[in-house]
């Protein structure tokens, strides 16, 4: 495939992610931070995000499985997840976390559980999307092109 075509494809894909609300402006900021001094910045941050999130989700599942749920702890985890997702620009995940935190405050177990489900779902979505995106970008770089940045 031509580099131009690949770049266009990548751009369209990125745009669709924005339009569908998976990512927000923060992700753009991350992309902007990538330069010759820091060529793999985005990839690093994204990988870190995946690690972090998976760990947190496991912890959350564990915490909510308990007979007597420690909501403070649950809240702390969700808070962390919210922080990570907002740092990277994973909008939907972040929104879920916000709702999750409200239910934690109310100590509504059922709601929390359903929220957890949702968060996991969203996380999976965004993970897939980001992986695809990274793959596309790496293909472009391998073909000798430069990663197209979003222009508004």
């Amino acid at each position: 495939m031509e580099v131009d075509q690949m770049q266009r494809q990548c751009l369209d894909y990125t745009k669709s992610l924005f339009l569908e609300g998976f990512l927000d402006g923060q992700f753009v900021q991350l992309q902007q931070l990538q330069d010759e001094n820091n060529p793999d910045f985005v990839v690093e941050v994204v990988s870190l995000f995946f690690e972090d999130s998976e760990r947190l989700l496991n912890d959350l599942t564990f915490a909510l499985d308990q007979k007597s749920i420690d909501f403070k702890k649950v809240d702390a985890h969700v808070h962390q997840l919210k922080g990570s997702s907002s740092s990277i620009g994973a909008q939907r995940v972040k929104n879920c976390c916000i709702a999750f935190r409200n239910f934690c405050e109310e100590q509504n177990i059922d709601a929390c559980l359903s929220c957890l489900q949702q968060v996991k779902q969203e996380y999976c979505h965004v993970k897939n999307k980001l992986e695809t995106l990274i793959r596309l970008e790496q293909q472009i770089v391998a073909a000798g092109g430069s990663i197209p940045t979003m222009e508004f």
Partner: protein
Amino acid sequence: MESCNCIDPQVPADDLLMKYQYISDFFIALAYFSIPLELIYFVKKSAVFPYRWVLVQFGAFIVLCGATHLINLWTFRIHSRTVAVVMTTAKVLTAVVSCATALMLVHIIPDLLSVKTRELFLKNKAAELDREVGLIRTQEETGRHVRMLTHEIRSTLDRHTILKTTLVELGRTLALEECALWMPTRTGLELQLSYTLRQQNPVGYNVPINLPVINEVFSSNRAVKISPNCPVARLRPYAGKFMPGPVVAVRVPLLHLSNFQIYDWPEVSTRNYALMVLVLPSDSARQWHVHELELVEVVADQVAVALSHAAILEESTRARDQLMEQNVALDLARREAETAIRARNDFLAVMNHEMRTPMHAVIALSSLLQETDLTAEQRLMVETILKSSNLLATLINDVLDLSRLEDGSLQLEAATFNLHSLFREVLNLIKPVASVKKLSLTSHLASDLPMYVIGDEKRLMQTILNVVGNAVKFSKEGFISITAFVAKPESFRDARIPDFLPVPSDSHFYLRVQVKDSGSGINPQDIPKLFTKFAQNQSLTTRYPAGSGLGLAICRRFVNLMEGHIWIESEGIGKGCTVTFIVKLGIPDRSNDFKLPFVTKVPGNHGSTNFTGLKVLVMDDNGVSRSVTKGLLMHLGCDVTTASSSDECLRAVSLEHGVVFMDVCTGLDGYELAVRIHEKFTKHQDRPLIVALTGNTKKMTKENCMRVGMDGLILKPVSVDKMRGVLSELLERRVLFENV
């Protein structure tokens, strides 16, 4: 002269006859001698008699005649020759003188007779002069009276005083028995007795105005003598055989302001007269003299003028009082209106909050509901609920905004913001909708468009969103294009708004934004209606149920507040439409940018972008967050160290670090850390600046930070630009607290 019978010696004298002759002669002589004596005596006495010579002649004649007769006494007896000679001489002389006298008298007697005629003539003349002097004297006196009366009348502007004074002075001047004034009633059909001289409070007699005597007086501008028995002259109840004196009546024209024309005498075209009646004393046998009538006429005219002046004054006083009353009433009304407005604003403010709260609850919960598992039917219902509540929320906002715009209480904010990112945000918001409808959305920002501008970001965004939203709403397919550039005055001669000339200056420029769409277009005739609130375009609402119709009206208000213009062009139905607006925005300059250490959004700064060498410590227990912040700071050239816990941070921090960024999202850890860092560097001047980085927007956060001695607070998310600005600010001011 009797014939002197002196030659008579022959006839013997009859003794008796002789005796009588003797005696008569004697007496004649005596008389003849005494007459001249008398004459002389009286002539001497009178100084005027002009004919002395004649008198002398006459005297001589008489003396000689007397002498003759005396000498005649001696001729009765034989007398000597001497006597005869004397006698003859005397006779001759007498003859001469008497002839001379006779001749002279012929001349003199006519003269003497004419003296008498002249005397008569002079007497007549003297009588005539006497009369004239009398007349002049009375005229002069009249004039004096008139002047005095006029002076009295005109010295006051009070109607009643004028009339009273007139009557009093007239009464005194003319020594009247009674003087009265009859004024026309309001209906104009009767005359009412309004003022009299002698009676204090005249009882209101009324007489109809159509009496012949009254008509007679009104139709002439002279004083007219009227009968004392006519109704107007009966001013007092008469008792017994009280005969009223001669009466005169004169009309007094009641002039209005409109009667006075410039360069013209006042036309007495008004039929409004009052009647003045003057009665002489009945027992004085006086009659009305011409000069007195003239006086009365003059006075009547003067009174008319004085009355009209008084009327004018009354009028203007009344008008002034009326104005004052109106003023007071207006003031009251204004205050009431202000109170009403205040009440309405309070109401709106309360309703604002009251209406929005449940609205938000509905919207928030419906959106959450949407995210849960729902059957298709339920999802449809929830979507409808959401759509309707969004519409309602928009409507509430619009109405509240518009009402604030209407009474001018809306004030634009002026803050520095990033114009480019504003457009980006707009596009972000619109792109989803546009792409669903498969519309291509392009935007072009001119290269000379400043990055940072001063203006009301929120409302500008609202305006642009509204315009672009409309474009999207009314286009089924095709494209939407947004262009923005700086409006230049030369290129801008628009016939649509001829008075508007955007002249940029050092501190301001005019932004021109054009939104073109290829949608259903608008009939050019409907364009003016678009900006009026609540008017909807019927043809468009069939397909797309539009909003409340307030959108464009609000846009126009905002644009106007920003000293700009907005207008729509369209070629017709189906040919798309172009919306253009120009607004005035400020250009931030260096000096007023960082007046305060408080920044609202991005502190637009193109200053030092290179912070190489700046050592920064980042403390964040969230790995992702930490690496993002680190990447950010590294991108800006800083030398970054990271710590994932307070202890680690405390260990790592040193005087080499310029700034310590710490995340305070996680409870009290951050605050305690700040305190401990302070303790560590109490003795040193250049301790590192401590800045809190948080997504927490509670007010308490800011206060807590300040309390523990932090130097700054920044809200996440932080973009590259923002961080750049933050670092510059921090290095310059050593403090930076963002407004939460």
